[in-house]
């Protein structure tokens, strides 16, 4: 029976090609816009490290101005970064299974004896757990030792991209390289890794590529580095030199810890609260005690990584899909009623209401399948167009990578949504046509 209905459906669709094209076009367009927007939204709002969501925590502490919070709009939140002195003090705790303190910097890479021009690279100055804590995949080698962190030893991890540029993608572990004219030894090459949104440092754009180069944390003091992210302060201080800067109330260090269970979480929380209480006695931390351990999903939310624009776009996409589907219902209804005399004949010849309903539903299914497939292809095209909008500079094509891979989750979501929505949209017209008393239309003939 299904084969016969399919045949009927195809014949009916061919009877008025204009109307059919209009319906399929409306479905396809609605799905395309939805796929595009959902992909974009997903790239910006997903939790890129969901599998470790219950053990990773961003550490923030409120030592801000006693007279006003860091952010007037969110007075309950401490600043997103730590001061150097607090980060160093809290880092000493051995309660966390893994811990990282870090900041971003910019350097110039050069290789002795190579004709390549020196290369400007974004750099993460970090302690050694960075790679294991965030599950960063390695192509060659690995991270450095504990001792290298504050020594600091001249060791470095390169990104795969930079390794391909400088060493043609070969295993470069053990090779020498110069960063801001200081010699470093490569100990590892990080594989392709693109956490979206970039959650571990919310100073930069959420679609930003991870850094090209990683060096031990102690190099900030050794080379008197400043953060390439934001450095914020609240207190007027007489900062004359780098030592003053390290001891100041300026925030520029990000801290994350891995706490395997509830007990470790509570213990570490007690530890930082205790530290803050001691600092209170020394005259700092004059705000009410407010230290936070924030999980990645919560972190993305409180830091507004998903902007209002994205929410509007998703709303718009669904409004668009709704209009497309309403349109399809209207067109289907018109089409089925147009063919009502034929249906009348079929009913008079003995087709049951159920059979007429099923036949029309098959027709709807054909339309929604073709529409969904076309919509997916069109959505891909639109995404390419969107990428062109966001590609700013070939060299700095950071975030565009994010939109390059249409992820399966949003495709499946949009596709099944569209398919079932169209079927649902077809239910009413198919039911309505089955209710028609055959005699009316037979008479009209």
């Amino acid at each position, binding site marked *: 029976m299904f084969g016969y209905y399919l045949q009927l459906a195809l014949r009916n669709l061919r009877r008025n090609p204009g*109307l059919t094209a*209009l319906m399929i076009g*409306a479905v396809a*367009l609605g799905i395309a*816009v939805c796929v595009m927007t959902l992909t974009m939204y997903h790239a910006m709002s997903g939790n890129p490290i969901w599998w470790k969501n219950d053990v990773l925590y961003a550490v923030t502490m409120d030592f801000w*101005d006693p*007279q*006003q919070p860091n952010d007037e709009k969110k007075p309950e939140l401490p600043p997103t970064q730590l001061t150097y002195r607090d980060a160093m003090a809290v880092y000493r705790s051995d309660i966390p299974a893994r811990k990282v303190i870090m900041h971003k910097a910019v*350097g*110039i890479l*050069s290789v002795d004896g190579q004709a390549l*021009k*020196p290369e*400007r690279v974004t750099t993460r100055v970090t302690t050694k757990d960075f790679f294991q804590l965030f599950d960063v995949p390695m192509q060659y080698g690995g991270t450095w030792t504990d001792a290298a962190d504050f020594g600091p030893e001249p060791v470095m991890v390169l990104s795969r991209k930079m390794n391909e540029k400088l060493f043609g993608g070969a295993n470069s572990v053990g090779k020498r390289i110069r960063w*801001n*004219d200081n010699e470093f030894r490569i100990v590892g090459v990080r594989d392709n890794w693109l956490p979206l949104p970039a959650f571990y440092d919310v100073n930069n754009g959420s679609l930003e590529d991870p850094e090209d180069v990683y060096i031990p944390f102690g190099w900030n003091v050794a080379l*008197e580095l400043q953060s390439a992210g934001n450095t914020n302060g609240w207190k*007027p*201080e*007489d*900062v*004359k*030199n*780098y030592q*003053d*800067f390290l001891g100041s109330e300026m925030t520029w260090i990000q801290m994350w810890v891995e706490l395997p269970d509830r007990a470790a979480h509570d213990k570490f929380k007690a530890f930082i609260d205790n530290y803050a209480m001691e600092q209170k006695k020394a005259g700092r931390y004059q705000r009410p005690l407010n230290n936070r351990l924030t999980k990645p999903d919560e972190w993305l939310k409180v830091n507004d990584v998903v*902007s*209002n*624009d994205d*929410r*509007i*776009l998703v*709303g*718009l*996409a669904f*409004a*668009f899909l*709704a*209009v*497309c589907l*309403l*349109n399809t*219902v*209207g*067109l289907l*209804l*018109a089409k089925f*009623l*147009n063919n009502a005399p034929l249906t009348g004949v079929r009913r008079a010849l003995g087709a049951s209401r159920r059979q007429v309903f099923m036949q029309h539903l098959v027709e709807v299914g054909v339309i929604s399948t073709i529409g969904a497939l076309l919509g997916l292809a069109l959505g891909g095209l639109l995404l390419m167009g*969107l990428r062109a*909008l*966001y590609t*700013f*500079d070939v060299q700095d094509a950071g975030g565009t990578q994010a939109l390059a891979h249409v992820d399966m989750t949003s495709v499946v979501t949009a596709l099944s949504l569209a398919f079932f929505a169209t079927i649902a949209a077809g239910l*009413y017209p198919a039911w*309505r046509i089955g209710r028609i008393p055959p005699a009316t239309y037979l008479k009209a003939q």
Partner: protein
Amino acid sequence: MTAWNIRPIASALWRNRTGALLVAFQIAIGLAVLVNAVYVVKQRVELIGRPTGMDTDNMIWVASAGFTKNFDYDSSWREDLATLRGMPGVKAASLMSNIPLSGGGSSNGFQNRPGENIPPKEIVQGNNYDVDEQAVEALGIKLIAGRSFQASEIQPPSETFELSSQAIVTEAFAKELFPKETNFVGKTFYGGLSKPIVIVGVIDHMLGAWVGWDKLDHVVLFPRLKNGPTAIYLVRTEPGRRDAVMRDIEAKLGDSNPGRLLRWVRPFDYFIDQSYLDDRNMAIFLVSVTTALLAITALGIFGLATFNVSTRIRQIGTRRAVGASRMDIVRHFLVENWMVTTAGVVAGCGAALGIGYWISVKYELPRLDLYYLVGGVLTIWLIGLAAALQPARRASAISPAVASRTV
């Protein structure tokens, strides 16, 4: 009113209400989206197009990064600036700490009297830049009082964000600091630790670093050299010579000093466009999706009208046969369609206002202006009329003979 036959049209419509309701629903969504899209797009376009106070079309930014240990920053910037200033087509060149409208910069809280316990509300935020004596000319900003910096006043680089004792400020910043004054030159304001700063010049307008910041026009220029080893040069060219000068700079500075990397030579537009990229894309996206949505809605109206005509061929023929003119038929369908559109518009007004309210709260924007709603309603009416015109005219072409033919 009887000439318009409102009542019979309405009752005919009511008998086939499903299709009409579907179209009305589409129109409601269409109106809500249209009104709010125009509202948001207008805000964005105004944001992108607001005056910067600078001669943006003829400005070039150059970044040079010294990276070798024996790199001599001091002689490097002197040499570079001399080269840049000597190039044909260059009006002025200056060493600056940051690039306005680029999203990167430095800001500080300032106050109009010394003291440590000033209430936070009286602290005025300012976006500060370290500049040299050619900055006013190179930025193309307009001094409305006082003077520019002299070469002898430019202080050596500071590694610790130190403030200077003199400043050129925007009028907006000065007004906020000294609300009751009109003449700001010679006035003293204070930075952190009550460091006194004397205003030597006032400029009418200039935008700072962060395009999303509401204090964007609070700019403070300090006479100080940018710290090394990265230098940022601003070059202002004679009108129309920007691109040629950029090529010259690449050629002249590219290999002049092996101890540094000429990172880039970029027009000012590059940074401005990048800062407004999201706003621009949002506008493009809204305009295209809204257009597509209205087109689909128009198709829906067209489809409904066509369907209504095709199912009433005999009735139309009968009406024509008993004396209705072609105009009467056209009017019938247009009025019928207008009723559907209006039903949608009424529902859509509520949705448009609701969404508009939500957006104004989310973005902290002024409330949706009712003009937008009026404009939206008129647009939708016009679209509805245009979409129904062709089916209505086809209906009027039906011959009266149809009435007698098939019975």
